[in-house]
């Protein structure tokens, strides 16, 4: 079940899209030779897998026991087999369709085992895929790799970062799936960040660092959402809560009905001594089903849990992240080498080779090679002129410096609020801004300068007094990245008193050598927030509304989810309408999205005096295994919503799922070496899935490490647009994000939606005022 869900198998969306039945590939652009981190799986001719159902009488619960009983009959079944407790796979056919066997348990109980042939599977059948993955996991175990979560890691040669008690294990992600023409193993280098301290150690350290009254809150903030690894077995759990009233001395009821304390349980079961009897316990809402027992919350002892991954604080530690990325960000050549090591291990290990031989399987030793296309570079247009930039760098920051914007919003009436000690900084900023704004065409009056005490209340009081309906924008200089102050300002100016605002930390402004570059960036950002337009690309499609959706899941406060929703308002895609749907527990996100779409259409009508004839939705924030829900619930709701607009209104709808987190890596062959594929690289064959209308685009450029392609899956499409046009449009939209003068990983509406959802989820916690909805205030 889990495997199937995780890979969204069985969701065949391509078959419902008529115009891509024959071909889903594009044609424009120049050819490029690529390799990807995939290895072909090969099997001997006439290979088949025999699937048997295994039943026990009397019924046996424990998997291990079921397995032990079955393999008392190894002479009959053979040495090569895979068994998950109910389904048995064999490479050979048993003589009879139904075989009855008798085994005896250690308690002397006789058990009848009935083995029934249920299927004879060709190599490409979906069940076979599941089987390949089971076998592959077995191989990784034979290679002495440690399974943590879904991936396998090598513990023998760790990288350590003692400053933060971090240990990094190199390892691999792997999955075997049916791709366009063949079954392949997709494997990528993965790094597991582990910590050589227990949750209890961490709690003690934190105790020495924060005030007593803030301790529990801080602890919760740092720990909730983290994944812990138990000492005594190899399970990972997500921390969902901390129970401060409980302790290891508390008791629980075991499966046999007896009461036992955690201390005694861990002592008896795992020989684990719990030394601190007063520690709280961690709660994990387990989603895993164990046997027939329904999942319930799992209680974990901090002393027996190791932390894994990074905390928010670590992520914000620039030096540490630099340290970390020097180990984990591998350039293409090196990454390919590391990936090749897995195949090397497999090729060199006798045990593994034997296992593969017994099953009649093998892996190609070379990475999968194929051709992709590189889309033509897009022209960046600024009020009449074309910006010349180097498409390889995917960036036009320098090129647009000092050039007039498409639409510049004046700074006639604006506030500059700063703490007393940043008086000079504020002055310098004003000077720099007055230098950089005229060439852009931004008219700027001197700001109303207001000094405040460096306190949240002081900022808010000033805002209450000084902001008027005529205020264009409020500029706040902050002394530090203290989140509460930022949150309070944003909350006030997004809901109570809707005015665009710009917050900048004083440190950012303090370096004289970068003052002008920073001022330019700020001016562009402020202009975008006030509804200005910076640049555009050619969009040949007419009467189209582009929608972007992304989600933010709050793990801390009230566990709500927020969907950011943005929709284009004009032909050039330079103006965007936005709303967000705040969804409480148990509510469906899709209800909120319907309302968003309705108001977007109304707004579009206001701007264009008609309704769009095409709607293209870019849907980001879809988790693994959620595709089914999207296809079956969200898309029908969109259609429903369109129907409700009017009887004659039948726009063409395209829904594209955008996925940034994919394990696919692409390498361009250049001379004898491998490089990152250039921006605009499109892949729509080979490593795509036959049951989907999907493609990959590498839109961004990276300075170090490997570029990650973005996966696009068109799950619904009545547009009749050629795949080539959908691909090109998608790539164009990656140029339109105004907070970055370059190409980004996803279409701009997705990134806007992300920004909005993040701001609301992190700082505002409710829907911002609709008076701001036609501006990019959330940048």
């Amino acid at each position, binding site marked *: 079940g889990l495997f199937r869900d995780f890979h969204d198998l069985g969701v065949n969306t391509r078959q419902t899209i008529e115009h891509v039945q024959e071909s889903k590939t594009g044609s424009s652009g120049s050819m490029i030779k690529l390799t990807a981190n995939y290895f072909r799986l090969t099997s001997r001719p006439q290979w088949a897998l025999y699937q048997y159902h295994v039943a026990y009488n009397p019924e046996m619960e424990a998997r291990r026991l079921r397995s032990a009983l079955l*393999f008392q009959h190894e002479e009959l079944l053979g*040495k090569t087999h895979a068994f998950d407790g109910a389904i048995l796979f064999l490479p050979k056919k048993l003589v009879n369709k139904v075989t009855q066997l008798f085994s005896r348990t250690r308690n002397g109980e006789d058990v009848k085992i009935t083995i029934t042939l249920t299927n004879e599977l060709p190599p490409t059948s979906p069940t076979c895929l599941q089987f390949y993955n089971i076998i592959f996991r077995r191989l990784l175990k034979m290679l002495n790799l*440690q399974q943590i979560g879904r991936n396998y890691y090598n513990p023998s040669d760790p990288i350590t970062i*003692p*400053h933060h008690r971090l240990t990094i294990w190199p390892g691999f992600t792997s999955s075997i799936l049916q791709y366009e023409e063949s079954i392949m193993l997709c494997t990528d280098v993965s790094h597991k960040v582990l910590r*050589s301290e227990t949750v209890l150690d961490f709690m*003690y350290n934190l105790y020495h660092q924060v005030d007593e009254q803030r301790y529990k809150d801080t602890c919760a903030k740092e720990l909730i959402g983290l994944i812990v690894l138990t000492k005594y077995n*190899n399970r990972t759990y997500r921390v969902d809560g901390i129970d401060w009233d409980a302790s290891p001395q508390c008791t629980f009821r075991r499966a046999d009905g007896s009461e036992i304390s955690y201390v005694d349980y861990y002592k008896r079961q795992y020989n684990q001594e719990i030394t601190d009897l007063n520690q709280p316990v961690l709660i994990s809402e387990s989603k895993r089903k164990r046997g027939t027992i329904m999942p319930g919350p799992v209680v974990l002892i901090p002393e027996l849990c*190791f932390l894994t991954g990074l905390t928010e604080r670590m992520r914000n530690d620039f*030096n540490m992240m630099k340290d970390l990325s020097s180990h984990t960000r591998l350039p293409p050549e090196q990454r390919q080498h590391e990936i090749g090591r897995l195949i090397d291990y497999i090729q060199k290990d006798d045990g593994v080779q034997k296992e593969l031989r017994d099953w009649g399987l093998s892996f190609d030793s070379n990475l999968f090679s194929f051709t992709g296309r590189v889309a033509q570079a897009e022209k960046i247009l600024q009020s009449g002129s074309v910006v010349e930039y180097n498409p390889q760098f995917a960036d036009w920051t320098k090129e647009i410096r000092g050039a007039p914007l498409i639409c510049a919003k004046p700074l006639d009436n604006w506030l500059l609020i700063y703490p007393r000690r940043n008086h000079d900084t504020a002055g310098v900023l004003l000077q720099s801004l007055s230098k950089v704004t005229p060439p852009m065409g931004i008219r700027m009056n001197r700001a109303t300068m207001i000094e405040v005490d460096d306190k949240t209340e002081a900022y808010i009081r000033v805002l209450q007094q000084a902001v008027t309906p005529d205020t264009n924008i409020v500029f706040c200089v902050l002394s530090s990245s203290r989140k509460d102050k930022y949150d309070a300002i944003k909350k006030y100016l997004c809901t109570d008193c809707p005015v665009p605002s710009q917050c900048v930390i004083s440190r950012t402004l303090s370096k004289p050598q970068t003052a002008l570059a920073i001022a330019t960036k700020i001016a562009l950002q402020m202009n975008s927030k006030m509804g200005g337009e910076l640049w555009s690309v050619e969009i040949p499609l007419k009467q189209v509304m582009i929608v972007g959706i992304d989600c933010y899941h709050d793990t801390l406060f009230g566990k709500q989810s927020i969907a950011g929703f943005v929709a284009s308002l004009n032909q050039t895609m330079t103006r965007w309408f936005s709303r967000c749907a705040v969804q409480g527990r148990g509510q469906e996100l899709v209800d909120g999205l319907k309302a968003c779409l309705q108001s977007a259409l109304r707004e579009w009508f206001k701007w264009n005096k008609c309704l769009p004839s095409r709607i293209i939705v870019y849907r980001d924030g879809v988790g693994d295994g959620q595709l089914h829900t999207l296809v079956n619930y969200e898309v029908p709701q969109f259609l429903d919503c369109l129907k409700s607009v009017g009887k004659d209104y039948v726009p063409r709808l395209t829904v594209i799922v955008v996925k940034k987190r994919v394990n696919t890596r692409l390498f361009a062959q250049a001379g004898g070496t491998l490089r990152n594929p250039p921006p605009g690289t499109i892949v729509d064959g080979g490593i795509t899935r036959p049951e989907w209308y999907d493609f990959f685009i590498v839109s961004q450029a990276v300075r170090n490490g490997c570029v990650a392609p973005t996966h696009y899956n068109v799950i619904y499409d009545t547009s009749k647009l050629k795949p080539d046009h959908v691909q090109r449009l998608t790539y164009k939209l990656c140029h339109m994000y105004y907070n970055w003068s370059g190409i980004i990983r996803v279409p701009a509406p997705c990134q806007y939606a992300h920004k909005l959802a993040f701001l609301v989820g992190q700082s505002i916690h409710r829907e911002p005022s609709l008076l701001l909805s036609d501006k990019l205030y959330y940048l």
Partner: protein
Amino acid sequence: MDKEFQEEQFTGIIKFTPPLYKQRYQFVKDLVEKHKPKKVADLGCADCTLLWMLKCCNCIEVLVGLDVCATVMKENMHRLSPLPGDYLQPAERSLTVTLHHGSVAHKDPCMLGFDLVTCIELIEHLEESELKKFPEVVFGFMAPSIVVITTPNSEFNPLLPGVILSRHPDHKFEWNRAQFESWALETARSYDYSVEFTGVGHPPTGKENVGFCTQIAVFVRKCPQTIESVQSEKPTEAVYQTVFQAVYPSLKDEKYLQNAVVDEVIFTAQIIKQSLLDHVMSEPEEYSDDLTERELEFQPSADCFSEDLETLVVENSMEPFVDGNVVYIPLTTIFSFPRVNQLCGTFEKFCELIADKVTLSSDGSAVMLSTEYE
């Protein structure tokens, strides 16, 4: 005891709680806790459950399993691999777990020098010829300090439903108490062991006369043998095949010890540096007077800070200090931290372990940390 039979009166079937096999394993585990053997072998280890339970016992450094069936061991051997946690916090003791494919009827030198050898439900599976060789191999050749043998008590069989001749088709025999005890006494006598009898699986009330469901004999060697004499007397060729071996990370291994010490030193130094810098920044003028008192605040866990260590810190002539962009933390200060102290034992060892791994001042007396990093 009554609990064991809760269901009996309703179903007429004897069910042991916990199950009998678990009771047998628990018996061995209790024995291990009592005698603290370092080297333990399980003959006929099958699915390795007993070994899996025993690997948690901190006294054991060598754990060996032997079975005639390699497949069953291969199916289950990964249970005996170290867990990620074993790598993250290497244990004090060393531990090697090995599985051999072979028969108890054959001698292999890898089985010499053990403190405890267990044969749980093994002998009843042996063919007559194998059973004959068994005492010579286990007691004569291996000659461990303690041997535990368990086997079914056939007198109990009438109480087990469905058992007519024997409890398992592969059982070559099932002995009553008299048979087992005479065999055991004879064996003990021949090889100079003492033996005591016990069992697990109490009979139900009213049937006490049949004895335990599983009978157990614990043999203890009378005269202690030195390892040298064992090895010199019995040179034999290796006949067992090694199926699996796992060496657990341990602080006994220099590599892991060094990692643990370096981790601890850098982390500790980091904490000292931080609190030092906090003080320097908030109260620069007080900085020079008030060192010893501040020192105590650096201790990450003040509660386990014993008194003599406290004086040790106070007596240090040198204290952590900041000079320009560099924080100097004397090695003596770091060594006084309980965890570092405990890991290294001696100051010399401590210096040796961190020598090339941590940046030291020119005279080698202090750890240097840059303040730039923050």
